[in-house]
């Protein structure tokens, strides 16, 4: 039977659930069931509904022994409305299956017509439920209506001796349905019917809590539906990217899959956003930009706002506090944290509501965040804008920064206009380039070139260089007391050396003056004051201050700026800087389109034996040589790999465990993935580089992680089921680009 009764996504967009479908199908059709029911638990939009609908289609089309019934609970529905809706759906689906007429389900059939169809089909027994429902409704006997509807599947199955497989989607919504105000919910009634043992069923929900204390443990099997595996997620995104002609890089898709927890809805939203804005998913910057936009004001944000209805700032404060406390927070600590302690009742009520939204879970006095990563970013955005009063751009930047610190990197973007715009664009284009120092020293620049003519930009390259950070987000500082229009201030957050940790985090604060007057001492004092406010506000440790002026600087201003160590750039310097950065951007763009073509992967499995890590090192040496890395870099990669393998072996739980190495060759990078079977090997000790050995009271072990971070361009850990994966990346230097060490 090929026709669809319920709407499902296209087959080519459906990935990675075949084993679950098979398991449920076998459960539904088996006569020897280990349990009568399945409780399918999965987070929001993880694909439970799609799965159930596909199981339904299989049961409808591929067998004739068990009647499949699918019903999805609706929010905001009363018990009577539910009884009405459920009974009609059940009757239609039962009849459709027995008569092999799917249109009975798909067509909008009135109760009268349904009764006629039942009579014609010699199914008077089934029509009795509809009759009883009408009578109960007439006399407003809500309990009878509910009882009649809930028992219908069980009694029908017994009467016709045709078993039913009942799939109740979003069953946790039933918890909100009550027969009377403050009365018990309909869950109890339903549960009694389900536990009768005559029908097999599947119910879905978000948390394990729903069934606590209800059924006996032997009568239900809990099935966790997690996000799609990395491979399935990548397959889904690749397929969709192909359909929409979006260029993508497999490494970036893997990062996206992890960040989006393998959630099909989120992944499809990102691809759709890429298609809408005609963008690719080739660099991490592409993904992070799309992701932040989607969470803040895209489809993901819109969908989340419709299900996460937060009505007060207190609720946002509670969520934020719980998100920050990784292992949960006690109610007392929460009261302290939220700091509106005078209204404890409001906080308690908010906690209850947030638990109902499946964002928090309260257990033994500990309140814990249980939402997914995307919801976390959405709440973070709302907290930053609504509680802290930050701008949307600032909040977006904050999301990108935090996520990058957990293991992302980015590459450039394009587009500029007037000086302020141009400066903003330039800041965003900072991507680890080395540019002539003199472009940030107006006094030196004027001294050398004011009287001379410089013909090309390369003249300035004779001088020292400044290593620019990789800027991950930029926003306007809007708290300036005066002079805002004349002297706007931009704040760019980024990381040095492509290392996404607190140590390498930097903030660039740029004041831009493009009026017809030079920057004077008053402007400088104002800028310095504003910088201290920004620094205190964002708690930045490493800050670079920079003043850009269209008409240059007065002598007094330059002197003060120089004493303060503030960078100074005029319009001419800015033009040169722009040209240099544009050039590097073009090189990156070219690189990105090429790296897709030549992706190669090598897999090595190492047994736990002496010097096994050298086998991997030898292989990576060959690969590195082939890629054109120099001997020095190859030894760095080998050393890092050896450390990673030793760590992986050391932390394996299993005695005869193996370490899995995968080397991925891109045009501009080599990616090493090392995975073990067992405990995590996390960066527990990460002392500062160059300061690890101390003669007295030294630490002799635990340096591996720091060493890897120093030897490679990127190092990140990814938790996997049954082990940990370490990912290390080494980039190939482009011509003229030096590594910043």
């Amino acid at each position, binding site marked *: 039977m090929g026709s669809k009764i319920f709407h499902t996504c296209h087959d080519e967009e459906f990935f990675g659930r075949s084993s679950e479908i098979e398991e449920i199908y076998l459960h539904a059709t088996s006569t020897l069931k280990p349990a009568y029911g399945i409780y399918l638990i999965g987070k929001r939009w993880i694909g439970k509904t799609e799965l159930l609908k596909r199981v339904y289609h299989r049961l409808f089309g591929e067998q004739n022994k068990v009647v499949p019934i699918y019903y999805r609970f609706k929010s905001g529905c009363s018990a009577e409305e539910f009884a009405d809706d459920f009974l009609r759906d059940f009757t239609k689906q039962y009849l459709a299956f027995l008569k092999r007429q799917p249109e009975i389900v798909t067509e909008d059939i009135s109760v009268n017509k349904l009764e006629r169809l039942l009579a014609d089909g010699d199914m008077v027994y089934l029509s009795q439920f509809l009759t009883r429902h009408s009578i109960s409704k007439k006399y407003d006997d809500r309990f009878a209506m509910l009882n009649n509807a809930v028992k219908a599947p069980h009694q029908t199955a017994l009467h016709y001796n045709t078993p039913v497989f009942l799939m109740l989607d979003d069953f946790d919504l039933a918890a909100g349905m009550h027969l009377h105000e403050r009365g018990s919910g309909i869950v109890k009634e339903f549960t009694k019917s389900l536990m009768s043992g005559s029908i097999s069923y599947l119910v879905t929900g978000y948390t394990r809590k729903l069934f606590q204390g209800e059924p006996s443990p032997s009568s239900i099997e809990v099935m966790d539906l997690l996000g799609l595996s990395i491979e399935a997620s990548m397959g889904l995104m690749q397929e969709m990217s192909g359909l929409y002609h979006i260029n993508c890089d497999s490494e970036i898709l893997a990062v996206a899959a992890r960040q989006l927890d393998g959630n099909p809805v989120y992944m499809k939203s990102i691809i759709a956003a890429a298609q809408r804005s005609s963008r690719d998913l080739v660099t991490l910057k592409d993904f992070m930009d799309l992701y932040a936009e989607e969470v803040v004001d895209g489809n993901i944000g819109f969908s989340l706002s419709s299900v996460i209805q937060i009505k007060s700032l207190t609720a946002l404060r509670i969520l934020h506090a719980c998100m920050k406390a990784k292992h949960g927070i006690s109610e007392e600590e929460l009261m302290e944290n939220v700091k509106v302690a005078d209204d404890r009742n409001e906080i308690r009520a908010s906690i209850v509501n947030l638990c109902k939204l499946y964002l928090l879970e309260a257990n033994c006095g500990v309140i814990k965040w249980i939402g997914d990563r995307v919801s976390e970013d959405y709440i973070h955005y709302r907290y930053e804008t609504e509680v802290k009063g930050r701008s949307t751009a600032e909040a977006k930047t904050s999301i990108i920064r935090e996520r990058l610190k957990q293991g992302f990197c980015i590459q450039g973007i394009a587009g500029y206009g007037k000086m302020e715009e141009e400066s903003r664009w330039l800041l965003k284009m900072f991507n680890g380039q080395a540019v002539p120092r003199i472009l940030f020293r107006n006094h030196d620049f004027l001294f050398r070139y004011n009287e001379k003519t410089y013909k090309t930009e390369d003249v300035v390259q004779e001088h020292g260089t400044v290593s620019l950070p990789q800027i991950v987000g930029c926003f306007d500082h809007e708290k300036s007391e005066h002079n805002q229009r004349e002297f706007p201030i931009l704040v760019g957050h980024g990381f040095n050396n492509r290392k996404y940790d607190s140590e390498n985090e930097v903030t660039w604060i740029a004041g831009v003056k493009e009026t017809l007057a030079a920057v004077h001492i008053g402007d400088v004092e104002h800028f310095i004051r504003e910088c201290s406010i920004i620094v205190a506000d964002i708690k930045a440790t490493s800050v670079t201050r920079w003043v850009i002026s269209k008409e240059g600087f007065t002598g007094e201003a330059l002197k003060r700026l120089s004493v303060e160590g503030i960078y100074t750039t005029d319009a001419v310097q800015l033009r040169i800087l722009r040209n240099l950065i544009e050039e590097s951007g073009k090189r990156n763009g070219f690189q990105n389109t090429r790296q897709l073509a030549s992706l190669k992967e090598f897999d090595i499995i190492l047994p736990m034996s002496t010097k096994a890590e*050298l086998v991997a090192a030898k292989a990576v040496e060959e690969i590195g040589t082939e890629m054109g890395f120099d001997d020095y870099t190859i*030894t760095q990669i080998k*050393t890092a790999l050896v450390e990673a393998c030793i760590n992986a072996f050391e932390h394996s739980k299993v005695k005869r465990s193996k370490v899995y190495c995968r080397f991925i060759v891109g045009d501009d990078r080599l990616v090493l993935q090392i995975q073990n079977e067992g405990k995590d090997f996390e960066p527990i000790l990460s002392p500062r580089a160059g*300061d690890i050995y101390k003669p007295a009271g*030294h630490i002799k072990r635990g340096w*591996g992680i720091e060493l890897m971070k120093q030897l490679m361009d990127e190092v990140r850990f990814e938790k996997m089921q049954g082990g940990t994966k370490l990912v290390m990346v080494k980039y190939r230097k482009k011509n003229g680009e030096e590594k910043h060490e």
Partner: protein
Amino acid sequence: MNKELNNCKELGDCVVLYADNYLNDIEGEKLEIACDTFLNKGKIKVVIDFGNTELVNSIGVSILIGIMEKVREKKGVLLFSSLKKANHYVLDVLGLTKHVPVLQSEDEALKKLLVADV
């Protein structure tokens, strides 16, 4: 398993120990045992030559630290020589080069040791 270091050279009160191609726990331990033996014989001017060493790992480095401390206890001198650039960087990152001078070659190290006043 053979725990003896076969590759070493004695020159007066100096001794040169040659590290293996891969300085890991096993090879590091061999170096340490050899060093102990020489220190106990009163040879407290020690050069560890890394000319043949392609790779070092952090366990190997931790053993080097042990050696360094033992030499210091005996009030001796320890020098490293012929380190490859990448291995030099590893010892740099782990802070060892602040405490142990690194010479370009074994000869340079020996020259320095001969004039060293211990």
